[in-house]
C-alpha cells in the first residue's frame, strides 16, 4: 500500500472540470514530479491533497486513511502534509524566526524555547540563520522561499507538496532552492512536486507524471518520459520546453 494514494480524483470549478479523474500513488521516501503546461491541473491536484481544495469525486488516502470528504480533522491532516507555494506566502508581519515558530508553538504545542532552538537549527541548515530577525519584505525571493520550506519542515511533515516553488524566482536564485529540495530527497522525505524545472525533475524524481487538461496522459520513470515519451502531446510539450532552453 502506497503512502499517498490519489484515486480517480475529480475537481470542478462551476462547469469547468480541472481534474478529470487523476490517480497517482506515492510510496514512502519517493519523489514524484508533476509536469505539464500551466492550467493542466498540477497546482489544483496538490491543493486537493492537503484539502485546501475540496475534491468533487474520487478519494485521497494518506497512510491508508481517507482524508477527503466530510468529518476529517483537516488541521490534524495538514500537520502531516507540508506545502510550499510558488509565491512563498510568508507572513509579512512576522520576522523570519516567528514565521517558522508559529505553527509549532500554536498548533503542535511545542514550548517557545524548544521551538526557537529547532527553528534556528532549521534556518541554519538552509543558510538563513543570520536572517532570523529580518522581515520577509527585506529578503530576496530565493531567501523567502528557503524560509517557506523551513516553515513547512518545522511541523515535521510526513509528506511535502511543492507547488512550482522556483517558478517565481530569478534564474540565479533557483539553484539554492533546488539544492535544499535535493537534500530533502536524499534524506528520504516523501515529496510530490509540480515543477517546470525538467532537468531537476529528471534528476530527483523516481516517477514523473505528465498532466494534460486535468488528466494524466503519461506516467513513468523520468528516463522513459523525457527520453522516450509515448504520447504525442508529451512529445510536443517536451519539445517546446527544449526550445525555451529549460531542458
Amino acid at each position, binding site marked *: 500500500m502506497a503512502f499517498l494514494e490519489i484515486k480517480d480524483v475529480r475537481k470542478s470549478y462551476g462547469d469547468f472540470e480541472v481534474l478529470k479523474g487523476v490517480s497517482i500513488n506515492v510510496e514512502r521516501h519517493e519523489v514524484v514530479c508533476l509536469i505539464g503546461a500551466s492550467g493542466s491541473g498540477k497546482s489544483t491536484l496538490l*491543493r486537493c491533497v*492537503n484539502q*485546501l481544495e475540496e475534491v468533487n469525486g474520487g478519494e485521497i488516502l494518506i497512510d491508508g486513511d481517507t482524508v477527503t470528504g466530510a468529518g476529517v480533522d*483537516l*488541521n*490534524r491532516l*495538514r*500537520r502531516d*502534509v*507540508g*506545502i510550499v*507555494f510558488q*509565491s512563498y*506566502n*510568508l*507572513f*509579512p*508581519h512576522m520576522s523570519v524566526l516567528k514565521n517558522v515558530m*508559529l*505553527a509549532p508553538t*500554536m*498548533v*503542535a504545542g511545542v514550548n517557545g524555547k524548544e521551538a526557537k532552538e529547532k527553528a534556528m537549527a532549521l534556518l541554519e541548515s538552509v543558510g538563513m540563520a543570520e536572517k532570523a530577525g529580518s522581515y520577509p*519584505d527585506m529578503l530576496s525571493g530565493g531567501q523567502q522561499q528557503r524560509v517557506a520550506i523551513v*516553515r*513547512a519542515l518545522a*511541523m515535521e511533515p510526513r509528506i511535502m507538496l511543492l507547488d512550482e516553488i522556483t517558478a517565481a524566482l530569478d534564474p540565479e536564485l533557483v539553484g539554492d532552492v533546488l539544492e535544499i529540495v535535493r537534500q530533502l530527497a536524499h534524506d528520504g522525505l516523501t515529496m510530490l512536486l509540480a515543477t517546470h524545472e525538467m532537468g531537476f525533475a529528471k534528476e530527483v524524481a523516481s516517477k514523473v507524471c505528465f498532466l494534460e487538461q486535468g488528466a494524466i496522459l503519461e506516467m513513468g520513470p523520468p528516463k522513459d518520459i523525457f527520453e522516450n515519451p509515448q504520447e504525442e502531446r508529451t512529445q510536443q510539450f517536451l519539445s517546446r520546453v527544449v526550445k525555451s532552453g529549460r531542458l
Partner: protein
Amino acid sequence: MTSAPGLVRDDLQPAPEPSPPQQVANLAVFALVVDLFGIALVVYGAKLLRDYNHGHVLATLVGALLVLISLYPLWPTIQGFSGARKRSGLLGGGQLVAARRAAARGREDASIGLGYGVAAIIVGCLMWLALTNQGAVADTFFRVNAWSQSFSQAIQGFWINIWVAVVSFVLVLIFGLVLAIMRMLPGRAGAPLRLIATVYCDVFRAIPAIVTVLLVVFGVPLAFTFTQTWNSAYLGVVALTLTYSAYVAEVYRAGLASIHPSQTAAARSLGLGYAQTLRAVLVPQAVRRMVPPLLNDFISLQKDTALLSIAAIPEVLTVTKLWESKLFTLAPVTLAAVFFIIITIPQARFVDYLVNKDAAKRAGG
C-alpha cells in the same frame, strides 16, 4: 525562431528633425500680465482692509505686507524674460542643445511667475470678497467682539461634542466588530445572522444621520419612558453609535477581505484553525490597513456631533446659534466652525501620513 524580414523597416521610419527649443517669450509676457493683475487686486484689497479698519496701523501693515508678497512673482517672470533672450542668442549662434536648455529653464521660471501670480489673484479676490460692501462679509462672519463674547460658552459646548464623539466611537468600535463578525459567519448555520447584520448595515447607512438622531433623541423617551430622566446627550450617543457602527462594520470586513487569500491558505496548510488564522495572521495585518479608514470615520463622527443641535442639546452649535440670535451676526457660528477645523485638520493630516507611510512601505517592498 527564424528572423522575420519586414517587421522592421528603416525606410518607413525616417530620422526626425532635431527638435527646436520651445517658445519662452510669449509665456513670460502672459506671466507678467497675470502678475500685474494680481498685484493690482492685492493693492485694492489692502486699501479696502485699511478703510474697513479706519486706517488702523495694524491693518495698514498687514495690507502693505500682502502687497510686498504679491510683488514676488515678478522676479521669476523677469528671469523668464532673460531666459528668452538667452534662447534666441544661442539659437542664432547655432548652439541648439544649449538653446533648448536655456528655453526650458526660462519656461520653468516664467511658469513659477505665472503660478504665484494666479495665487496673488485668488488672494486679492478673497480680500475683495471679504471686505466689499463696507465689510458686509467680515461683519457677518468674522466679528471679533462677537467671538470674544461667545467664546467661553462656545468652548463649554464644544466639550460636549468631544466627549460625545469619543464615547460614541468607543461603542462604535465594539458594536461594529460584533456586526462584522456576524456578517462573516460561515455556512448555512450563519446565514440568518449574516442576513440580519447585512440588513442592519444597509439600513443604517441609507438613513441620513440627522434622521436617526431625530428619531432616537425624540422618539426613545416617548417609547421607553425610563429614559426621560436621561441626559439627552446620551441618546445622541446612542443615535450616532447606531449610524456609525454600520460604517465601521464595513471597514472591519473590508480590511479582513483585503488580506490576500494566499495568507489564509498558508496559515491553514500549516494546521492553524480558522480562529487561530484570524488571530495570528489576518487580524494583525488587517488592523494596519483599517486604521486610516477608521480614523476617517472618527473624524466624520466628530463633525456629526453638531447634529445633536436639532435636539437642543447644549453642544457648540446650539450654543453659538443662541448667540447668533442674540447678537444678530453669524460670527459665533463661524467660531464653532473654527473649533471643528482646529481639531479635525491635524487628524486628517495624521491619516494622510499613515496612508503615505503604508504606500511607501509597499512601494519599497
